[in-house]
């Protein structure tokens, strides 16, 4: 614990900033109902009311409180992106590790299937699948998790391949150890650390993709508050010179920048380079 605090103190300013922002977002997401002045989809006034003491950021196209929806949006948008990323990692890295250890036809089948999925642009494939399964939170999570699992698969496989060629894995194999032991004791502890930084990076992509889909009206569905759809619903205000609709977009950007700063720092530390 002390060692972690010590590392944090030595971290560059950008990383500290990133950590502070992420903690703030988590706080808002967790305590959303306590922090928000109104209900998530409660109509509190007329459409497009300006900023005031009651409605801090005004109201939206249906007369709902913008500030409240921002706070609930943190919970929905981040929560869904996080769940999606976790599923993608669980599926992708498990498949990647198996492919690396077993090699042979398992590896061939999985890798070629992944090649095909990756050769279709992410958003396009997501749109195709969402047409089929319809736009709902479950299908959104499933579809995006599936697509990103393919990227995770490639990375996890490459990392595990790097471990598999090590002499200590060969030593365990010729000792007679079983597959399960080799995966658990030899591969996983060495392959997991590089994947942690990758998790942050992939979370950003998932987060941006889901926001993009929501902005297109194909992601998180109303009346749930969500940052991507909030921009779309209120975008017409921009042509009147009011930037309020961009606050959710800025919130998306800020979180992504923050996570990127942390990832940069972790990668930098891992590579052992000078600052």
């Amino acid at each position, binding site marked *: 614990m002390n060692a972690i605090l010590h590392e944090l103190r030595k971290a560059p300013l*950008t990383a500290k900033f990133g950590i502070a922002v992420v903690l703030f977002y988590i706080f808002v997401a967790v305590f959303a109902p306590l922090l928000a002045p109104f209900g998530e989809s409660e109509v509190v006034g007329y459409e497009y009311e300006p900023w005031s003491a009651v409605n801090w950021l005004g109201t939206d196209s249906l007369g709902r409180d913008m500030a409240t929806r921002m706070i609930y949006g943190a919970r929905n948008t981040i929560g869904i992106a996080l769940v999606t990323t976790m599923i993608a990692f669980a599926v992708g890295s498990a498949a990647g590790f198996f492919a690396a250890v077993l090699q042979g036809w398992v590896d061939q089948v999985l890798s070629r299937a992944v*090649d*095909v*999925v990756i*050769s*279709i*642009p*992410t*958003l*396009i*494939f997501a*749109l*195709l*699948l*969402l*047409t*089929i*399964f*319809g736009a709902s939170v479950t299908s959104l999570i499933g579809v995006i998790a599936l697509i990103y699992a393919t990227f995770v698969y490639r990375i996890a496989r490459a990392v595990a391949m790097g471990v598999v060629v090590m002499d200590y894995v060969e030593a365990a194999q010729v000792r007679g150890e079983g597959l399960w032991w080799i995966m658990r004791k030899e591969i996983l502890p060495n392959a997991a650390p590089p994947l942690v930084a990758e998790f942050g990076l992939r979370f*950003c992509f998932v987060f*941006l993709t889901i*926001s*993009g889909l929501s*902005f*297109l*009206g*194909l992601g998180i569905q109303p009346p749930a508050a969500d940052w*991507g759809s909030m*921009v*779309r619903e209120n*975008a017409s205000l*921009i*042509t*009147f*010179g009011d*930037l309020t*609709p*961009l606050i959710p*977009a*800025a919130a*998306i*950007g800020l979180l*992504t*920048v923050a996570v*990127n*700063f942390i990832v*940069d720092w972790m990668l930098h530390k891992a590579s052992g380079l000078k600052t």
Partner: protein
Amino acid sequence: MHYLLRLFVQRLALGLLTLFVVSLVIFLSIELLPGDVAQQVLGQSATPENLAAFRRELGLDQPAHTRYLSWLGGFLQGDLGNSLISGLPIKDLISERMYNTFFLAGFAAVISVPLAVLLGVIAALYRETFLDKSINVATLTAISVPEFFVGYILVWLFAVELGMFPSIANLSEDASLGDRIYRTFLPALTLTLIVTAHMMRMTRASLINLLALPFIEMAQLKGASQRRLIVIHALPNAIAPIVTVIAINLAYLIVGVVIVEVVFVYPGMGQLLVDSVAKRDFTVVQTACLLFAATYILFNLASDLISIASNPRLLHRK
């Protein structure tokens, strides 16, 4: 040379095979649809006669492989079928839009590719300096914010506040090139900003990887200047990675184009695709997806072939 030719043909065949499999995936994905397409489209109130007529018209009464072959066959002959919803030929729906989308993406690519490579080289040249760190923070921000944020900020700045460019990029069919460029300026700028940031970061990273190799230190010890080091010694070895970066980002352009078209209400393929997804117009979605995917696969194939052609180990065999 014989060997290289074989490698080329191999890659070409592999690319075509991928394209074939992708078309199969796109076609078959519709088969995954829970329930019956006709029922989904016509709704619960449709009479059995209507449903039967609808199926016959779309060939849904045929087995899947027959439909796939006739779909693919039609595709190769330029017959893209009809929209499920409006019944109009898809070809008429997309031909104009396709041109518009390629114009927008091409516009952005022409600016961003040279700009990104140049900035990447400069950042690598002055790495770890204030300039490099500023570029790093700026590009990191650019790739972190959603595409629609960049789009709307530009709308607000150039259309609302400054009134220099239109906020909506509607095009008439007979618009002159100058007019086109004027109207597509903001969407193109949005795409350029995002794609340049991505591409520049990757260019810098691949160059810096290269600079850690022993032959670069050797060139330094032979007395090469910093500029000569990068331009003469590193760049010829960076062609493959940089071309790959460009291919990845041109693909990114395709994705970005969808969202940017919606922001600027631009009459392109992306807009059409999003509308069709909302309306669940499967045939149009299939066609649009296949066209986007094909473009992407062709870019990757091209980058693959260029990488092979730039590798001295493959060009000059032992």
